[in-house]
């Protein structure tokens, strides 16, 4: 018995030792990219693997991608400096910038300057095409769903347009809207008939129609919103101190310089659903900020 105990303790000691030794060396500082993923893991992994490799090649620093699936988590990660560059939605980008003064808007996609939401309805719901914003009142007392609760195109802007048309959240059937969690889920739930109508990102809608996920016989667009600015790259204010002066500019020109001439860059842009990245300014997002404040999403 005692021999056995002895063996156990020697083994234990050995393992602790090995464990401790393997814990001690420090990694090299790397440039950390984050995004609120809104696509499937397979595509996402390809997209950010390529992006990291390309940025790493151009900027000569190790680049790592950290997925964060939760909107406020991404904002907090940016505020706490856990992420250096984040692909934010309109609202989350503003939230993050307000919580991290000095953060820089680096770029947006060509499509982001004039981004739109679409309101969709199940074809059996009897909801008709709407011609002006006040027509949204037909959604009164209907089962209606947004996407994720912090999404700009799936919640904030649609809620703003509803608000302008005089529709309150408590006017929907069941006294509250649903929150499907994602744009794809919104399509699926409206198409199934569980909800009569919903609002989502127009880009997702277009690709869902293209790949057959959305069935035009069952679900249709009833209103296309006016344009607003949405997704953008937001960078920490202290990148130059940490990675060398001029780093932020180099980062920006790297992103802006991508084109489909290069096969890797073309691939990345394709995965982002864009032809290129274009400069973006804080001013473009002042409307989002105002809407966010009006609707209580920004304090």
């Amino acid at each position, binding site marked *: *018995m005692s021999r056995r*105990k002895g063996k*156990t303790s020697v*083994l*234990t000691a050995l*393992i*602790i030792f*090995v*464990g*401790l030794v*393997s*814990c001690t060396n*420090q*990694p090299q500082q790397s440039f950390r990219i984050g995004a609120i993923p809104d696509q*499937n*893991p*397979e595509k*996402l*992994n*390809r997209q950010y693997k390529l992006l990291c490799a390309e940025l790493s090649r151009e900027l000569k620093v190790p680049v790592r991608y*950290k*997925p*964060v*699936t*939760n*909107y*406020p*988590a*991404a904002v*907090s*990660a940016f*505020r*706490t*400096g*856990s992420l250096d560059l984040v692909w934010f939605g309109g609202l989350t980008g503003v*939230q993050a910038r307000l*919580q991290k003064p000095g953060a820089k808007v680096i770029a947006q996609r060509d499509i982001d300057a004039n981004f739109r939401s679409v309101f969709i309805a199940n074809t059996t719901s009897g909801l008709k095409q709407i011609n002006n914003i006040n027509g949204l009142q037909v959604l009164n007392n209907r089962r209606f*769903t947004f996407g994720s*609760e*912090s999404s700009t195109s799936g919640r904030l802007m649609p809620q703003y347009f509803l608000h302008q048309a005089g529709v309150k959240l408590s006017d929907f059937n*069941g006294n*509250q*809207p*649903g*929150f*499907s*969690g994602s744009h*794809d*889920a919104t399509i*699926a*739930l409206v*198409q*199934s*008939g*569980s909800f009569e109508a919903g609002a989502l990102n127009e880009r997702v809608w277009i690709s869902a129609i293209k790949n057959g996920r959305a069935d035009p016989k*069952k679900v249709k667009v009833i209103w296309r919103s006016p344009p607003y600015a949405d997704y953008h790259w937001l960078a920490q204010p202290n990148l130059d101190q940490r990675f060398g002066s001029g780093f932020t500019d180099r980062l920006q020109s790297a992103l802006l310089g991508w084109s489909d001439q290069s096969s890797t860059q073309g691939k990345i842009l394709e995965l982002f659903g864009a032809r290129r990245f274009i400069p973006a300014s804080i001013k473009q997002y002042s409307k989002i900020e105002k809407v966010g404040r009006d609707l*209580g*999403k*920004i*304090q």
Partner: protein
Amino acid sequence: MNRISLTPPILSLLPALALVPVLAVVVTSVHVGGLQLLFEFFGAAIQPSLDPTVVKSAWRGLQITVATALISWIISTLLGILLGIASASVVWQTCIGKSWPAFLIRRILTIPRAIHELLWGLLLLQLLGLSPWVAILAIIIPYTTLVARVFSDQLDTQDRRALNALLQAGAMPFPALITALGPPIVPILMSYGGYRLECSLRGATLLGVFGLGGIGTDLQLSLQSLAFKEMWTALWMLAAVMLTLEQSINWLRRRQRANETTTNQILITFALMILLMSLGLPWLKGLEIDLSSSISWNPIPWPTLAELIGALNHLQWLKLISSTILLTLLASGIAIGTPPLAMMLWPSRLGIEVQSLIWALLRLIPPPLSLLLLLLSCQPSIAVAAIALGAYNLGVMGRLLKEGLEEQGNSCWKALQASGAGARSSWLYGCLSAQSPSYLAYAAYRTDVILRETVVVGLVGGTGLGWQLIESLGSFNWAQVILLLIVFATITLIGESLSDYTRHRWLRSTQKPALVLDLQS
């Protein structure tokens, strides 16, 4: 003479009445619009995606989840035991002759327990940023206090005659405690510890679903994009790990119980824990998750009084609280009442095996996923949310009931069978009756858990305090967050004292000291 008698077996079955309103609502709102997607979902089960990128990503996620679960399990169990000793009256009474410090510590420990690990995760994320410690701490904080509570409960309910005899004979307090209480408590601790590992694994998965990394993140991403084949890749992997874990814990427990002395059991278990711990840390590091990196503290701005009052007036408390409580009651009813009802209706060996398979499946599917699946064929309502939340916990309760019945003798059941009673009636009288007091005790624990878990389905269902809390977090409205947390904790604590009360009532009526195997989330 009081003729109506709420006997324990009836009390175990009665919660199933929650199925009546829930099913009534669901059946009237059911439709076939989402059938195609549902078929797609179940069809994908037999052909999960085998794309190397998907498998690799899921495999990496799985490792992170398992390593996180392991580390947090070990730390929470060890800390929990220490805190459990510190909050046991018998220890204080023996050492200093007074028991109020135990009472005090116990009260303090209720607060971290009242908040679901998911909320801890989201809160810690605000304070610590994207540190790998967030997920680990989020599990450790509530679990440590839970283990402490169960352990101190167990210590205090042990027979004290042996201890008193030793003290009378002049033994020093601490050695006397170890000698008298050690041997009976160790086996309980062993089996309870095993359950905690499974709980940690489920907790770690759920945290991932809300963006804190690991396989849950993969699940959430494929859920968002309705990529069912990829979702099943992750689900099957998770199932394999859960099953392996369950089986190996059972195997280890049986072996230990049969072969080892108490001292050896403790030694081997500790050695195993340290081994797993020292494997877990480098493992995570190998996955580029470095726990030795420094933690930065990023305090949030403390809200002013005016903001707090504003938040107090802004939120519709009555509606939030009542819908949360309604959701909890319905979900608890489903989770508690369904397993005995189903087993009573189909008590054959085949029936029980089929049911336990279904329960295993229900435990596997996180509530946000089942909620989305349900919403594909039902209109949204609180009933649907209750089913999603209830189903997950039903899986846990079903397993507890089955295990309890297996440990319990079947002599009464045989006697009733021999007297000609039908299979269902004899199961009800001969099996469920004797099991029901401890089942009800577990049910009381489970209700606490379900109340905390309303957060999880609130997000999709748009109902209750849980949803509001996520919404306020998403708006970075700290005044609302703080008020909501206080309300949440208060309700949880009230619920907990109520269930404590009922549990004590039911356990008092069992003869054997109850082995508390709470499968907390």
